[in-house]
């Protein structure tokens, strides 16, 4: 109420402008152009954020066999993946109606066993597609990195052109094992095992 009274009774009268009068437009100060600098734009946000899943036992078994041109873990007719299926949490639809897809202790133990057997067989295989270089005994850095890129592509589906610090780690692994064993086959087998047992292979 007091506010209304103050407005009604006090305050200067507004200046009355004659009709037809127009004010000069105010000239705005010049705006200086701000430089954007050289900061890189942030990467695009990921298009999906779902939780990674582990491959099923059947997916792992089939993937390993296809990648290696048919090398089975254990007996060809009765893969060890099937022998250990219950321990690995595969659903039997009697006691268990859901398949365990956690990267459990047991899964990783048996994956390690499978990778060891599979990689050893794959590198020794006649007409093996293991190597992506002509000279499989080459120790040239470029050849080693080319072969690592080839194995990553075959095993983990990573582009041959991708640049990733893990390639350096695989190279270090290859060099270390070669230094200790003086065998490129053993060194490559170890790299192969590392790729099959890395989450880049069994998680998606």
């Amino acid at each position, binding site marked *: 109420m007091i506010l209304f009274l103050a407005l009604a009774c006090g305050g200067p009268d507004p200046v009355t402008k004659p009709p037809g009068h127009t004010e000069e437009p105010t000239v705005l100060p010049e705006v200086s152009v701000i430089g954007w600098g050289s900061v890189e734009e942030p990467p695009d946000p990921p298009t999906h954020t779902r*939780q990674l899943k582990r491959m099923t036992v059947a997916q792992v078994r089939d993937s390993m066999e296809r990648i290696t041109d048919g090398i089975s873990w254990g007996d060809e007719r009765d893969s060890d993946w099937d022998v250990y299926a219950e321990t690995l949490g595969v659903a039997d639809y009697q006691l268990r109606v859901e398949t365990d897809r956690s990267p459990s202790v047991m899964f990783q133990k048996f994956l390690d066993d499978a990778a060891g057997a599979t990689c050893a067989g794959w590198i020794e295989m006649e007409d093996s597609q293991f190597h992506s270089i002509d000279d499989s005994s080459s120790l040239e850095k470029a050849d080693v990195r080319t072969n690592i890129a080839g194995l990553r592509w075959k095993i983990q589906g990573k582009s041959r052109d991708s640049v990733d610090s893990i390639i350096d780690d695989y190279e270090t692994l290859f060099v270390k094992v070669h230094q200790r064993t003086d065998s490129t086959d053993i060194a490559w*087998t170890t790299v192969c095992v590392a790729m099959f047992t890395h989450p880049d292979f069994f998680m998606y």
Partner: protein
Amino acid sequence: MKTNRRDFLRIATASAVLPSLGILPSILHAATPTITDRYFVFAYFSGGWDALLALDPRDPDIFTPAAVSTTGIQPAYDRLRGLEDEDYLDNSTVDGMTFGPYIGDLADPIIGHANKLALIRGMTMEAVAHQVARRHVLTGIRPAGTAVRGSSVATLLAYLLGESEPIPNLVAGLSSFNIGHPLWASGLPASSIDDLYKALSPSETDLMENQRDALEAFFAKQAGQASTQLEKDIYGNRNIARALIESDLAGYFNVDSGDDEMLALRERFGVDSGTTGDGGYMALMAAQALTKGISRCVTIKAADGLDSHQGGAWEADHGPSMREGFNAISALATHLEDTPFGDEPGDNWLNHTTIMCFSEFGRGAELNANGGRDHNLINAMMMLGGGIKGGQVLGATTDLGMMASPMDLATGTVSPMGELVGNNHIARTLLHSIGIEEDVGDFRANPITALLEDA
């Protein structure tokens, strides 16, 4: 020199454990057991057992076929194959503790376990679907649909009792759950003793030592770069798998080794004589895991194939399968009793091991149209060993339809003022048995103090 296994495990799991602790209910941090030398065996009879055949029998002279319409109870012992009239009821050495025809060696007066075991009759299970009911028993909390709402009781107990064993929680033949507890307390699953042996053994095509060292160094670097909890769990589990192999435990589970100790165990657990079925191997595995200091909690499948809806299966197989399971448990109890514990003269492993025999639910008191028995909410359970006041029967089913009766939890007697006992009471009681009085598992039930030795 090999890395000390325990240190290895600690390093292996530290990165995965610490973040998990943050989401634990604060009450768990405060709960410290006052009894720390307690071990647990959870023995599962798979498929839903018929309590009339072992744990909660009825006298067939009273509950005759002619009286079924008025009693709603049909023992039908005369239909069971290979039984004589005198086999129907097995009166133990304990007053009032009568078993059905398939209790096996557990009631044998010479073996003498009856005075160490407690029967809980007239339990209600709340679900008659196998998976839901099984998860309810394992966790002590009714699942939401089929989704568990808590860790397995074995996981909780393993967590509370510490991580001093290499495999704190061994689970053979069924599922295990871990919700919010550290990775090391998770059940290590193995469907059989052979699989456990393989899991603890290096592969036949294992890498050479220098290959292995380089490979583990590679993965140690990857683990150090892990940023998500999932990645940390993956590398943590990998390290546990490697540490278990390094610990040279496999030999304890090599049932085909042919060494004298293993041959004696095979005989004791009846694995060659066929008296214990697969339960014999499971019980042997539990015995080794406990007495060799490998596990704190062991869950085993003592008997399988009890889901006998058809008359033929119920008449011929159900009882014998139960008996094999009970024989296996009897052998386990005997072995634990014969194995000295610690330095105290006369002390033995059975004094420190609580054995719980359970099935997901019971079976109907009347035969179905096929001559078998269907699922039933009413059930019975058996416990023996450390912490359990043996030689008693708690609760009862009614003589009209075998319904559950309320039990006075302090005395174990039937009382209209008592409570209907379910899985949550049992879970709470197990916590109580190690001196944890708070309801740290959120079971929302009182403990059955009548079941406990020192209550």
